[in-house]
């Protein structure tokens, strides 16, 4: 698979990254080389193989009763009202 500069721009948008016009071609060629390398996995027949998401998974995962734990904040707002101050993140798109 060859990755084009247009695809780099599309994936960058998905990843919330700005890639400068001048960087796209180089990234496309670097990513193409890496993707062509990883495509060697296609030669393995894995139809009957279950995927592994995590090794040494202990079941059940550590669970505990949910309880509020206080922690010192690092923002100025936290010192006054016990909250973290963040920029507005809703209402825009």
């Amino acid at each position: 698979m060859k990755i084009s500069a247009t695809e780099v721009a599309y994936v960058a948008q998905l990843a919330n990254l700005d890639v400068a016009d001048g960087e796209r071609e180089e990234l496309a060629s670097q990513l193409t080389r890496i993707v062509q390398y990883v495509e060697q996995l296609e030669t393995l027949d894995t139809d009957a193989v279950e995927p592994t998401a995590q090794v040494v998974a202990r079941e059940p995962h550590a669970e505990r009763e949910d309880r509020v734990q206080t922690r010192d904040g690092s923002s100025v707002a936290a010192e006054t009202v016990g909250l973290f101050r963040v920029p507005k993140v809703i209402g825009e798109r």
Partner: protein
Amino acid sequence: MNLKKATAGQLAREYREGTATVSEVISGVFEEIERRDPELKSFLRTRKDEAMEEARAADRAFAENEPVGPLAGIPLAVKDNLHIRGERTTCGSRILEDYVPTYSSTAVDRLRKAGAIVIGKTNMDEFAMGSSTENSAFFVTRNPHDIERVPGGSSGGSAAAVSAGLVPVALGSDTGGSIRQPASFCGVVGLKPTYGRISRYGLVAFGSSLDQIGPFSRSVEDAARLLDCMAGFDPMDSTSADVPTSNWSGELDRPVKGMKVGVPKEYFVDGMDSGVREKVRAGIETLEGLGCEIRELSLPHTPYAIATYYLICTAEASSNLARYDGVRYGLRVPGKTLQSMYRQTRMAGFGPEVKRRILLGTYALSAGYYDAYYLKAQKVRTLVLQDFQTAFETVDLLVTPTTPTTAFRVGENTDDPLAMYLNDIFTTTCNLAGLPGISVPCGKSQDNLPVGMQLIGNHFEEGKVLRAAHHFEQAGGFRG
């Protein structure tokens, strides 16, 4: 004695017997850092005032015969992706340049409770993505054996600091070899424990199903001491394993005679340095001389490990690093819209390798490619794991080279990301399978650079790994 090359075990004895004080050792550490580190650049920041204060407190405890921890007064360097509450964690990145965590990592916390004194935070490839420490946003760390060469990575600062004798022990993290490969390049011991053995709470996440914290040291015994203090269940990490721990440092002398050690043929590939091959072969003979039974075997899916690893780690990284958007952490570059703030922050804050991996991971997870790349890699991960499970039905340990080459020159691989990735060819398998692995020095190549030998054990069998490594170190006289 020469305190610069003393192990943690030797320092502990000196303190107990009153032949050295913690204050003189810690102050000696900072003198040595001032002398050597302008050239090596292993530390990003040091904490002299705090460390000297802690040293005086330790000396008072020794003087008054108060109970002290097993690591009382031991100087420790910490990779800069592990949190210490109220002190900066940069992760080698501009995006976290001014980030001050509000909590401490369990691993560092446990070592400090055992008495260790944190000297400073060490340099690393940005977000632990790299094999040379050249991807640090701040500066390049040099290999103490040859300053024209890299120390390896991503925990290159910790490896270099231990190798140069600045500190006896240090912490790193290993996602695809980031402890074992720099340990090999710098001629020190580096242990990656079983996934889940040490809590990852307070470690900046890179590849969450692969990341594991571990020690660097100049003796296997010191690595075992640190593991003794760090291991064990932690409710703050949901993948922390609730399994029994051990007194590993106290069990190193138990015999290794009769231990079955497998030599996987796929780890002796064309294109590896002849010096590496020769020293590791000699190391295997040493193990045989200790009474281990050596068996050739095959781990047939080894050649697919790098491809599998780079799909899984980049996919996990792209998801983990989505949190650095300028809203809650570190750097924020204001934009006209929310979207432009996100993008400009990430554009300014991430270096080229991090962006490359986020792009690759996003691509592998994106609609239309998920099955072909990410799911495929997870399936091959199963095959890699099964190879090991089959091997451990007949052997106790596996022995391999840690890396195919010795330390390469600064700048040698920076233009070729794939060539850099191939450095991890012998180390990523342990992470994919979650197994414990150690790199121990096994001599020097023709060009006088350290060679590392890797021992791999079954899940939670750090005891066997450490024991064989310890006997090997004693037999070969390889202590750094």
